């Protein structure tokens, strides 16, 4: 066997090995809406959107759908004006390895609250009709940023949340946008990220309101039949959100600038949202 042939075999073997590992995707930049809190909708991987132009179309439809859902909840709007931005060409790796400190800092500085991406694949449903399946990832940027700052301090961050669709018992849909554009899921993560961001900015009352709201929405997700990693990650996030709500209370009370008759003075840090004890 010649040296040249041996090298070729080695190169091929290495290529195969690299192919077996998750590919590190190119993370192209995306522009947030200036002056607004933004949610990035990045390109999902997987077999379902393999045709040229499909990912872009999918992202535009998803953005549209989420915009509608946001508008539909306009009566609540607790001080937030969150915009969804489709990011065609931006395709993070499924495991979140792209989100190193620099990238997360840049997102955080530009008021990106959440980045959503994932993997979409197709399968046949029980009736033989195609039924998309998805694993969607939600990176809570303020939480990831805080985790990066505290690296080495121990304790796993819940900044990356993963949900699978459809869930057991859910009505089947052939439309991948309808499959993943779950308003309450996105809303839960947006409220979580927004509350954490506001807490860092010492906007205690608005932070508290968003964090308590996030707690309710996350609890509703937790009541669904989640399994494995998703369930554990969500439980950890709920703990961190409850803890952050408690911090909003304790920090407000300790802050000399917080009003003497501010509503957060009604609350205890240990029970920041006065959750039911039963």
């Amino acid at each position, binding site marked *: 066997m010649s040296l040249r042939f041996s090298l070729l075999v080695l190169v091929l073997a290495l290529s195969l090995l690299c192919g077996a590992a998750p590919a590190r995707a190119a993370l192209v930049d995306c522009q947030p809406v200036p002056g607004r809190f933004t949610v990035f909708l990045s390109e999902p991987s997987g077999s379902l959107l393999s045709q040229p132009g499909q990912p872009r*179309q999918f992202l*535009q*439809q998803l953005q*549209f759908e989420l*915009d*509608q859902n946001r*508008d*539909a*909840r*306009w*009566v*609540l709007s607790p001080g937030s004006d969150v915009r969804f931005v*489709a990011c065609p060409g931006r395709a993070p790796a499924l495991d979140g390895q792209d989100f190193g400190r620099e990238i997360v800092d840049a997102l955080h500085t530009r008021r990106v609250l959440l980045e959503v991406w994932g993997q979409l694949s197709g399968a046949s449903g029980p009736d033989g009709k195609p039924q998309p399946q998805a694993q969607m990832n939600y990176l809570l940027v303020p939480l990831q940023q805080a985790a990066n700052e505290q690296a080495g301090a121990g304790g796993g961050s819940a900044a990356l949340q993963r949900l699978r669709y459809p869930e057991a018992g*859910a*009505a089947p849909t052939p439309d991948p946008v309808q499959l993943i554009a*779950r*308003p*309450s899921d996105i*809303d839960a993560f947006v*409220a979580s990220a927004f509350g954490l961001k506001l807490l860092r900015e010492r906007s205690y*009352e608005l932070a*508290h*309101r968003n964090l*308590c*709201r996030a707690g*309710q*929405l996350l*609890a*509703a997700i937790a009541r669904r039949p989640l399994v494995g990693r998703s369930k554990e990650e969500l439980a950890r996030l709920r703990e961190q959100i409850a803890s952050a709500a408690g911090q909003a209370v304790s920090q407000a009370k300790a802050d000399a600038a917080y009003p003497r*008759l*501010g*509503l957060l*003075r*009604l*609350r205890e840090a240990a*029970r*920041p*949202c*006065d*959750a*039911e*004890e*039963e």
Partner: protein
Amino acid sequence: MKPLTMPSFSFLLRRGRRALVPLLLSATAALAPGAARAGGVEPCEYASVFSGAALNLLVLPYRYEAPRLGGEGAGARVPQELERASQQLASLVHLELLMGLLKYGSIGAKHLQAMPGELCDVDKVLTQIGRPGGSGALKPGQSAVLVWGRLFEQGGQFYLQSYLRFVRQGPQGPVEERLGFELAPGLGRLEAGLPAQALALAPRRITREELARVDRDFRQAMQLRSEPRSEAPGRSIEFQPQQAFAYWVTGTRGDWMQLQPMAGGPAGWVQVRGGDEAGAPAWSLQRWLPELAFMDAVSGFMRLRAAGPMEAAERRRTERAIERGLQRYEQALSAEQAPLAWGLAAALRGWLAWEAGQREAALAQFERSRALMPDYAGARQLVALARASLAGPELGEAGSARLSRELMAALALAPDRPELLGNLQRLLDFFGRRPEWSPYPAEQLGQRQEILRAAAPR
């Protein structure tokens, strides 16, 4: 088939919409209480209600919105046909809702049109019709349901989205509904509102062909006949979106409605509710817009809230109609697709059940509403008060602690909700008189009362 037109109204509209106002206002004023069943069109800036109607429905424009920046077709000029379609849809929504609402008695329905280039703002309309004692404004006890919407395009598909808001006139202007709860002697009445009295309903896809077909079907069905029989000679109502549509509804017979144009022209009978019991009529817009059934149900709910006596049989009929409307909507959209509408529907059902003395059933509905709207303070508060009320005639120590926690949880979601702040104030004042039930030490109680007083709206 010769169309029926309303030349005098059309002329007035073409020559100047302002000229229409005195005519419509005089017609409105002439509407006698008890015979209040009327429909009309008027410019948005002169929005008024039928003074004798317990319930007024106002349909504001459905606006066409061009595709958003970055989407397909962004920046393109608004196609005239789509602008026309959106105007036409508002007209059709008005007609269909008016026809459906007749079963509630004492109703008026108007279609408000914006002047070219102007917007019809729902807040301004509400201010206009809510001025206490104002001309053309609601009288205390009367209710109003406001409906508006938008037509937009995305990815080559058209979508239609409707919005809904409903109020009742109080002595000082529009107020939201309140359900009273007596939880313990000496506590006084605590109040809860609905989770929401404004709602954006889920957008619905509608094709251009469907838009055209709705219009065509409707025109075919809208045959004005000399007698309330489908075999009677008829003529089509040539209805144009920009044309005034102002009728007295002078009678009904079964599925037939008798129309009397306000500005002259032939009167006649129209078959309007040919399938109300079994489902929407064959021509109904509800095939595409099930939210019309939801709006109908909400209107029925507000009709029940409006002042004035209502016989028990009529009340039962109205309650059945509300339930039919809610069910029709829920059959068309799943709870996953429209959780807020489902949540509000559950709250409405619970409210009616509570008023009927079916307290356990009401609590179950309130709990369902809360599950569907977990981040709505109003939904949480309804459950808290209903549960405390059902627990017994006395709150007790444990009940007080639980109620406090639950109201505080609701307050965390909406710290500015007035009736919630009021409830907490009353509860703490009560704890001052019954310290053995108070979850707070005396010194904390005083501080809490002070904070809540400071937060309460002036």
